[in-house]
């Protein structure tokens, strides 16, 4: 990732102060949000382990992994957005776990897409990359990885393998879009599309899942994706909060993952 060589003194001061503030916020994140999140996931996984639903899910496995592998290999391109095979034991997940699988695959897609952006930047394919954009991509990518890990913790608690593939229905679209990206603006627009899709999916998800603990998980992630989108709007020179009510436009459904 290339950075600007010249940094005015005022920005050097700002950089230091902002870095300190970011570190403080990161500490707050570890102190506050993660324990709450772990508690919600713990409630959910306990419920999965003990409920009749969990038993049925665990017993009803079919060869879903093959579907994912096929989706992955069938949409491969020069980018790394298509990753290697996913869950070896993944079956026909239903109910809240089907939503969790969809969410994990969407998060995997975001992680892969941001990874592709970083790779392209490192290869000087995006022109000059502003430092704030580099920080955004790195941080957002890390948060999406945490989201994926959160969903996968519930899935694995139910006896299934973690979902490691990106949303197979969206991969072709993202790959095609990424192939046209030649600069930071294009990369930001692609990222904005993914963040808005993720936010809409989670917003829809709080009504689609049934367990309160599942709702908590989805509700704790949707605002974060919305914040990613707000910063991307700002970076693109657009008004950062365009809607008084966030739309469901672009929300994905469980069929993305199951192929059904």
């Amino acid at each position, binding site marked *: 990732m290339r950075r600007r060589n010249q940094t005015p003194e005022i920005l050097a001061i700002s*950089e230091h102060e902002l870095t300190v503030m970011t570190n403080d916020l990161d500490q707050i*994140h570890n102190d506050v949000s993660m324990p709450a999140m772990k508690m919600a996931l713990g409630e959910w996984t306990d419920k999965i382990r003990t409920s009749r639903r969990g038993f049925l899910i665990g017993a009803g496995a079919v060869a879903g992994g093959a579907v994912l592998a096929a989706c992955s290999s069938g949409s491969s391109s020069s980018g790394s957005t298509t990753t290697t095979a996913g869950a070896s034991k993944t079956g026909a997940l239903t109910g809240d776990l089907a939503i969790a699988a969809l969410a994990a695959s969407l998060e995997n897609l975001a992680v892969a897409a941001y990874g592709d952006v970083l790779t392209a930047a490192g290869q000087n394919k995006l022109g000059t990359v502003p430092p704030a954009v580099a920080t955004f991509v790195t941080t957002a990518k890390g948060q999406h990885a945490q989201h994926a890990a959160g969903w996968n913790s519930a899935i694995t608690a139910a006896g299934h393998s973690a979902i490691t593939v990106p949303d197979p229905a969206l991969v072709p679209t993202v790959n095609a879009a990424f192939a046209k990206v030649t600069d930071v603006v294009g990369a930001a627009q692609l990222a904005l599309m993914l963040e808005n899709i993720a936010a809409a999916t989670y917003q829809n998800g709080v009504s689609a899942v049934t367990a309160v603990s599942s709702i908590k998980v989805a509700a704790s992630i949707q605002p974060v994706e*919305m914040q990613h989108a707000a910063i991307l709007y700002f970076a693109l020179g657009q008004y950062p909060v365009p809607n008084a009510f966030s739309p469901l436009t672009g929300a994905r459904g469980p069929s993305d993952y199951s192929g059904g």
Partner: protein
Amino acid sequence: MRGRLKEGRTAQEDGADIDPGAMSTLIEESQDIHHDAMAATTTSLDEMVDAGMEARAHGGVDLDESREVAARRSHLLTGAAFGGGLLAAAGIGAALQGVFASPAFAASATDVQILQTAASIEALAVATYQTALTLPFIGGAAANGVVKAFATTTMQQHQQHLTAFNAAVTTLGGTAQTNPDPALLKVVNAAKPGLTGPGPVVALALELEQGAAETYVADVAALSDANAKKVTASIMGVEAQHAAVLLAVQALLNGNAPQLITLAPGNVANLPAAAGSVGFPQAFYPTDQARPATEGAMS
């Protein structure tokens, strides 16, 4: 995360070089998009009206659902979910628990209280932004154009949230709440004398937005009515976006770089690296600052 405005800074120094015409165009575009989003929320509210009428026509609610809500509300009243405990300490919790113990008590009664509290938070937000806009360094001619536009638009968005929450309240048989959250009102009133520059105003707004977002994140798990949940879910992320913008603005003010608070094309190239992540400090949105569910409920 409170603002630390440098002493002696003038409003003019806080101004940024922006294009008012371009800003107006952006606002208009965002409002067009907003109308599309509003359609989905209106649909949820319409569905609530239909469901409410149907429930009243049949004179009852699902008993299993009511029992679940009663149990959940009992949990909330102990303060376990919202970190409150204030109601229990005030002796109100026991009285309400008696009411909620009846499975026949409609789930909507619980939802009404949650939604009234949400409305009270929105009423306070509207009033606070209105006050902020009377300050020369927020709403005056010398104010930063983006900050002024943000305060204006955000106030309007909160007004729309207030309308939506109260529409949900009345649909479920409750009384619209137009008064501000009493606990938060004290916080705002205490802060008013110190609103001597953009920094303290941003810090106060951030506190309100963060509290609102966290409250709604908690609410979607506590609400029983499906459409009330949808309406709340469509608002929680917007408050989080307000908070993200305020975090970024606050950081730039604290970094003595108010000129970077602009939507001018190419501005991103001038932003310091940390500005890229300061707006979203947590991977999972917390709820430790969520307001107690009945704080703004009407008796």
